[in-house]
């Protein structure tokens, strides 16, 4: 059977139009007209190509090994060089590009080391008005290996307020360890390993029970069997300042 010529012609036109449309859609026109994927890929590439300004602490070591190693052995070991010296990728790539700044003002150090009550316990802080107010920190402390002139060995380094209160009280001569057991971990991560508190009445009774002979506790002897039996002593008496100042 032979198709009429009109049908073949019409068929050719339809096929041609279909071919052109499909060609336009899938080959000639870019995918970015229909999908977000090329835009996103281009954005990711642009983002990855952005310039780096902080070179990273390890890249400083190549030339400044002495300072790096001094810092690594000290209390500032976790602080990246660029924390104080500013973004230095340019200097790391080409040392002629200018030297990174050396902050020497007192205010710079105080940004971290001025006392704020919200700072974690154990973080070394000073009262800026009481601690050598006119001096620069770097005159006494080497910023790459900051060793305080007197390393705090006792609990007062962090618990200064308690220590000062206790110094005024009848318990001034008692060591902290008399009542609290402090683990080594407490010095490293204070809130994760809390010191113990006395959990028995006998802990205070060693000095304060009737019949004991410690002369220092002579004016506060208690009949442990009759006085406040259902409480621990420190639930009523503040052991760091028992019954007011001396």
């Amino acid at each position, binding site marked *: 059977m032979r198709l009429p010529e009109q049908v073949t012609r019409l068929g050719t036109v339809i096929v041609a139009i279909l071919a052109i449309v499909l*060609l336009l859609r899938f080959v000639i026109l870019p995918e970015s007209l229909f999908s977000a994927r090329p835009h996103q890929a281009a954005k990711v590439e642009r983002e990855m190509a952005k310039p780096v*300004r*902080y070179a990273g602490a390890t890249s400083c070591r190549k030339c400044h090994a002495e300072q790096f190693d001094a810092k690594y052995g000290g209390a500032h070991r976790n602080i990246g060089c*660029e924390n104080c010296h500013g973004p230095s990728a340019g200097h790391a790539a080409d040392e002629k590009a200018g030297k990174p700044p050396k902050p020497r003002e007192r205010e710079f150090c105080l940004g971290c080391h001025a006392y704020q009550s919200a700072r974690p316990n154990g973080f070394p802080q000073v009262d800026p008005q009481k601690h050598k107010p006119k001096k620069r920190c770097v005159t006494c402390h080497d910023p790459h290996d900051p060793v305080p002139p007197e390393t705090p060995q006792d609990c007062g380094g962090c618990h200064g307020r308690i220590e000062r209160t206790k110094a005024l009280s009848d318990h001034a001569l008692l060591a902290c360890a008399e009542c609290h057991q402090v683990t080594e971990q407490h010095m490293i991560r204070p809130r994760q390993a809390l010191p113990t508190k006395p959990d028995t009445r006998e802990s205070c009774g060693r000095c304060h029970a009737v019949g004991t002979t410690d002369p220092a506790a002579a004016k506060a002897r208690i009949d442990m069997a009759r006085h406040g039996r259902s409480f621990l002593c420190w639930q009523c008496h503040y052991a760091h300042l028992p019954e007011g100042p001396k």
Partner: protein
Amino acid sequence: MNKREFLKDAILFFPAAGVLQALSCQAAAKDAAAPAASAYDPTDHWYGMGVDVDKCIGCNRCVEACKAENGVPDEPFYFRTWVERYSIHSNGETTVECISTKPAPVDQVAPEDPGIVRTFFVPKLCNQCAHPPCVQVCPVGATFQTKDGVVLVDEKRCIGCRYCIQACPYGARYLNPNTRTADKCTFCYHRITKGLLPACVEVCPTEARIFGDLKGKADRLVRFQRVNKIAVLKPDLNTEPKVLYADLDGEVR
């Protein structure tokens, strides 16, 4: 060649040439993309950050580093990352202030409020949610999640409509006044894809911030996740944040 044959050949020639050209372009693009893909494969990574709240000293170095690295405007109300100070009062009230906007004076100690029971700093940034609400609301598809889990904003597509700023439950986005487009933390995407740390992690003096790859078996962040009690911000919104907070106080929102 008569007119009819010429037209026939021409009709066939032009589309065929178009097809060939398009195919050769695609092949060339594939060749060019191949070495880059072997150097960095985003599907191998799933980035996250750990924040140890107990270690933050509120020094604002991370905020300054972020601004320097990413060109965030200097005004103290445009932030990709910022630090908040929480104070819990004895009457149960909680007050929050952004110390990046108004840093405490360094030359004197602020008088202490005896009504404050406890107070601490919380660094905040884009949580790079696994299910980001900001991506859902973008009307032009300008913000999207990369294969390594970072949410980016395409500044060429963004129309600055601010829907995403409204949608972010963490307030992590702002409208950049220079480009008039939305902007946010990218985990320093240009750094992490080169194997560097984000700028804020690089400068943090107490290692309160830890950056890592949640797909890595022996990664620092995976260890951080294992040894700490981890919380995320607003877990009830099911955004599945990838910024993990260790020892987070229940009052932090």
